[in-house]
C-alpha cells in the first residue's frame, strides 16, 4: 500500500506539472462558463422580442384584474385599452406584428367565448397564455348569473385529490412528502453535484487508460516493476487518478456553483449539504472504481492509443451507456428499463443517479441491491484487471487481441 501511495503521488505530480493536463483541467469549466454567458445573452434578447401588445376593449371592468394576472404570470404583455370596433380591429391587425385584440363585453360573457384577433406571427404559445387571464373573467360570468360570494369561492376553487396516509407515522410522512413536493430541487441539486463528480472522475479514469498504455509505449514498466508489484502499480494509478478526478470536480464546481448562485436564486449550497448527497457521491465513487479498474486493465493491453482495436474501442464507450437509458429512466423511474439499468454493473452508477434524482421516495431495497452488485463487480473487475495488467504491461510493441486477454484471465 505504501508503494501504491508513492505511485499515486507520482502520477498526481507528473500530471500537475504537465501543461496539457492543466489546460484540460480548466478548459471544461471555461467552456461551460462561456456557454452559460452566451446562453443567457441569447435568452435575454429573446425575451425582449417576445413582448406582445394586447389591446383590450373592456366593457365589463375587468381590465385591472387582467393586468394583475398578466403580471403575476409574467406573461410579458404590454396591455392597453382600445376603442376600436371589432371590424376596425380586424383591418388594423393585418399591418401589425405581435399584437392581439380582445373584446370583453356582455355578449361574449353570455356566449362563453371572447373574440380574439391576433396578428399572424402570434402562435399557440399566446393562446396558451390567454388561459392565464381566464379566472377573473370566469368570476365575472359567475357573478352575473347571481351566485353568492360563498358559492363563488366554492365554484372557483378546483377539487383536489388529497392522498390519505395509511401508515402510523402520519404526520412525519406528510411533512416529508409535502417538502418533497414543494422542492424537487432538493433532490436534483445533490444529484447534479454527484453527477459532476461522477463525470469528472470517469474522465480521469480515461486518463488512467492512457497512462497505462503510455507505460508500455515508454517501455518503463519493467523498470518500475523491478521495485514494486504490478498490483501496487495498478492501485497507485487508480488512487492517483481518483485524486486528479476529484480535483477536476472541484475546479468544475468552483465554476458551476458561483454561476448557479449568480444566475438563479437557488441556495445551491444549502441543497448540497444534505445527507442524501453522501449516498449520491458514494455511488459516483463506486462508479469510478469500476471504470478505473476496467480502463487500467484495457490500457495495459494496448501499445498505442491511436491503433485502438474494435474491442478496446467498445469498452471505452461503456461509461456512456447510461445516456442511452436517460429518456426511459426519467420518463418512468420505476419502470423495467430503469430497474435493469440499476442492476447492470456498468450502468448502475449512472442509472441509479438518474433514478434518485427523478424519484420522490427512494427505493432503499433497490439501492441496497445495486450497491451490492456494484461492489461485487468492482472486486471482480479489480481482480481481472490485475491479471490483465500483469501480463499486458510487459507486452511491448503490440496490442493484445481479445483472445489473448481471455487466456490471461485464466492463466
Amino acid at each position, binding site marked *: 500500500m505504501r508503494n501504491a501511495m*508513492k505511485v499515486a503521488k507520482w502520477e498526481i*505530480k*507528473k500530471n500537475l506539472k504537465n501543461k496539457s493536463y492543466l489546460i484540460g483541467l480548466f478548459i471544461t469549466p471555461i467552456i461551460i462558463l462561456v456557454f452559460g454567458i452566451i446562453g443567457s445573452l441569447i435568452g435575454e434578447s429573446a425575451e425582449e422580442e417576445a413582448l406582445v401588445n394586447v389591446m383590450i376593449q373592456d366593457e365589463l371592468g375587468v381590465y385591472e384584474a387582467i393586468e394583475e394576472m398578466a403580471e403575476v404570470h409574467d406573461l410579458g404583455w404590454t396591455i392597453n385599452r382600445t376603442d376600436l370596433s371589432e371590424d376596425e380591429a380586424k383591418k388594423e391587425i393585418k399591418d401589425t406584428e405581435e399584437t392581439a385584440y380582445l373584446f370583453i363585453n356582455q355578449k361574449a360573457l353570455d356566449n362563453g367565448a371572447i373574440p380574439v384577433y391576433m396578428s399572424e406571427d402570434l402562435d399557440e404559445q399566446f393562446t396558451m397564455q390567454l388561459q392565464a387571464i381566464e379566472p377573473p373573467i370566469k368570476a365575472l360570468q359567475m357573478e352575473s348569473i347571481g351566485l353568492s360570494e360563498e358559492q363563488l369561492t366554492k365554484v372557483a376553487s378546483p377539487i383536489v385529490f388529497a392522498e390519505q396516509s395509511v401508515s402510523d407515522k402520519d404526520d412525519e410522512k406528510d411533512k416529508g412528502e409535502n417538502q418533497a413536493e414543494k422542492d424537487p430541487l432538493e433532490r436534483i441539486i445533490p444529484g447534479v453535484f454527484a453527477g459532476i463528480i461522477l463525470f469528472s472522475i470517469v474522465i480521469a479514469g480515461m486518463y488512467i487508460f492512457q497512462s497505462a498504455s503510455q507505460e508500455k509505449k515508454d517501455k518503463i514498466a*519493467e*523498470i*518500475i516493476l523491478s521495485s*514494486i508489484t504490478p498490483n501496487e502499480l495498478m492501485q497507485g494509478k487508480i488512487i492517483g487518478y481518483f485524486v486528479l478526478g476529484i480535483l477536476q470536480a472541484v475546479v468544475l464546481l468552483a465554476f458551476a456553483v458561483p454561476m448557479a448562485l449568480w444566475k438563479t436564486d437557488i441556495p445551491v449550497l444549502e441543497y448540497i449539504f444534505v445527507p442524501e448527497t453522501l449516498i449520491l457521491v458514494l455511488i459516483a465513487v463506486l462508479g469510478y472504481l469500476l471504470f478505473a479498474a476496467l480502463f487500467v486493465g484495457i490500457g495495459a493491453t494496448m501499445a498505442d492509443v491511436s491503433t485502438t482495436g474494435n474491442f478496446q474501442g467498445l469498452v471505452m464507450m461503456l461509461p456512456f451507456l447510461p445516456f442511452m437509458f436517460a429518456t426511459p429512466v426519467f420518463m418512468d423511474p420505476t419502470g423495467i428499463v430503469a430497474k435493469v439499468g440499476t442492476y447492470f454493473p456498468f450502468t448502475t452508477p449512472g442509472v441509479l443517479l438518474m433514478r434518485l434524482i427523478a424519484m420522490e421516495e427512494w427505493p432503499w431495497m433497490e439501492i441496497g441491491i445495486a450497491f451490492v452488485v456494484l461492489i461485487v463487480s468492482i472486486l471482480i473487475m479489480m481482480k481481472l484487471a490485475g491479471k490483465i495488467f500483469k501480463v499486458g504491461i510487459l507486452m511491448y510493441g503490440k496490442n493484445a487481441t481479445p483472445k489473448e486477454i481471455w487466456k490471461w484471465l485464466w492463466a
Partner: protein
Amino acid sequence: MENVLSIQGLEKSFKDKQVLKGISFEVKKGEIMAILGPNGAGKSTTIRNIMGIMYPDEGKVIFHNHTDIPRHKIGYLPEERGLYKNVKVMDMLLYLADLKDYPKEKAKERIMYYLDKFDLNGKENTNLEELSKGMNQKVQFISSILHEPELLILDEPFSGLDPVSQDVFKDEIRNLANKGTAILLSSHQMNLVEEICDRLFMMQEGQKIIYGSLDEVKTEYANFKCTIRGKNKLDDLKAISEVQRVEQSEDVSVLYLEKDVVPIQWFKTLPDHLNIHELTMDRISLHEIFVDIASGKINQEAGELHA
C-alpha cells in the same frame, strides 16, 4: 567468495514451448557473471524470473539464503527499457530511488555525482524527451545503480550504445564489481563480455552449454589458431600435425589446432615449402567458440567446468 544469488533448476514454459530447461548458476559478491547466448536462448526470461516479474514453473531463486527477493537490494536494467518522456531527469531518478526506499537527500547527491561522471552535468532539469538516445541510456543506467544495490542485473546493457558509451559503461561496471557489487549481465556481444566478465554461463535453447570462469572456458575451448597469408594447397595444410581443420578463403588460411598444442614445438613441425607472407597465432575468441558450439562444430555435451 560468498554467493549472493543462486539459481537452482529453473524451468519455464510458454504455452507448449519450454523456454528454460533446468538452469542453475551462482553469482558471487564482487564478480561479473555473464549469461551469453543467441537471441531467443532464454536469457531475458531467466532474468525476468530472477526479478520476480515472471514466476518459474520449477526451480528456485535464492538471494543470500532467502527465497523472497528484497527488491530494493537489486538494481535492474531490463533489455526493453525506457523512461517517462515528459519528465525531468532529476524527478525521474528521484521517483525510482523512492520506489527503492532510498533516502532522498542521499539520492540527490548520487544523482549529481553520476550525472557528472557520465558527462551529463547540468542536465538534471532537462526533460527526458530532449535528451539523445545515448544520454537516455545513461540515465537508465544511473537509475539501476543509484540505490547502491548488492546485486546488479543488466540485460543487454551494451545494446544500442556507441563505442565511447560502451567503454564508459564497461568501466563503471568493472568499478562497481571491484567495490563488491555482484553483477549479472546478459549479452550476445561476446567480444565486450570477454573483456569484462569473470565467469560466464553460455546457454542455447534454454539449456546450459558452458559454465565456468573465463580463463577455464578459454583453456578448455579456446584452442590456438594459426592464420597464414600466402598461397598454399589445402591438402598440404591439412597434412600438418595437430591441425583439426582448415578454413581457406583466397590467400588466407586459418588452421585450427588441437587442444594441447605447444606453440613453439608446433612451429617447428611446419614444412619448409609453405608460402608464408604473414603468420599470426592466437586463441579462438569467445565469439568463435560460441558460433562453433551453436553450429555443432564443438561437442555440445561439453559439461560443466567447476569454477
